[in-house]
């Protein structure tokens, strides 16, 4: 699974697509290419090889993240003394599982989320089957 930092790094590179990439950007592209695609980006001296690599990375990320993740609105965090011992959750460490757990405990605080966690389909199916029985 891609981390949020990785996704943001690719998104940032794609946003600067119309500009020449700096040497730091090029190093980042090489690293991401290796981490995400498991391939080594060879500098063949072509003019657009880094830009082509960014397109490849962006397409991969888009396909991999089609399923939306639970996301908090700007300014919203989860920091409740009675939830997970007061651990602070932001978008960088929030998982769908934690979000579901939080919303189960505090259903009224769904207003903190810009994207709600996807429902657990498998859990629903099981409960439906149990009901049938």
């Amino acid at each position: 699974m891609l981390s949020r930092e990785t996704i943001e790094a690719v998104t940032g590179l794609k946003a600067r697509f119309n500009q020449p990439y700096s040497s730091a950007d090029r190093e980042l592209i090489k690293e991401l290419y290796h981490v995400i695609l498991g391939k080594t980006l060879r500098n063949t001296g072509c003019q657009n090889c880094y830009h082509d690599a960014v397109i490849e990375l962006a397409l991969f990320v888009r396909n991999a993240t089609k399923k939306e993740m639970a996301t908090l609105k700007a300014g919203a965090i989860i920091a409740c003394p009675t939830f997970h011992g007061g651990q602070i959750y932001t978008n960088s460490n929030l998982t769908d599982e934690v979000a579901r757990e939080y919303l189960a405990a505090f259903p009224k605080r769904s207003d903190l989320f810009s994207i709600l966690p996807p429902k657990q389909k498998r859990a629903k199916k099981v409960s439906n089957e149990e009901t049938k029985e």
Partner: protein
Amino acid sequence: MICETLLSAGYNPSCQAPQRGFEADGIIINRSDIDFAASTLNVTNGKGSVVLKNGKTGYPVKQTPRNAFDGSTMELNVGTYVNTWTKNINILLMSVGPDTTDIVNKLVNGDTVLILRNRTKEDAAWPVDGQGVNPKESEYEVFGWEQGLKASAGTRTPNDEDTMGGTQLTLTETGASSHGLFLFVTDKAATDTAYQSLLNAN
């Protein structure tokens, strides 16, 4: 409006010398981007969270560290029936050009909320910890939460050495019922995180 006017606590000054003024950075937010229903900050509590609407973000405001937001004032207006505060925040934009002009034009005609960081981090007026100090609740002060900040003055002096020919703007909130409102979530660490998360659109 402040409806409760009876004191419920005394005042006990902090032994630590308060630091005057603001830190050099803050966050400015379009008032229309704030999700007031999801935010817990209000006049009654005096402190709480600031949450933005879907996809909206705050923007950083940086000043030179020496006397950041210099000349900002809060003044009491005595009315016949209700007293209110006028809060003036001075911002110096020490640059000239199309990008700066675009920002100035939007600030001049906009309605904003500004979160500034007080250099004083501790509050002595609400002694809840038994020692006369309510720690770390004073840092993030919110201006414009009640009535919005609107431009009330602006000066650009191209030959001025002190401002490097930049533009000084005054953003004013009039009719604020509360002397101060503060961004605060659970504790200092959570509040720092919440403040930073205002800069990420989600």
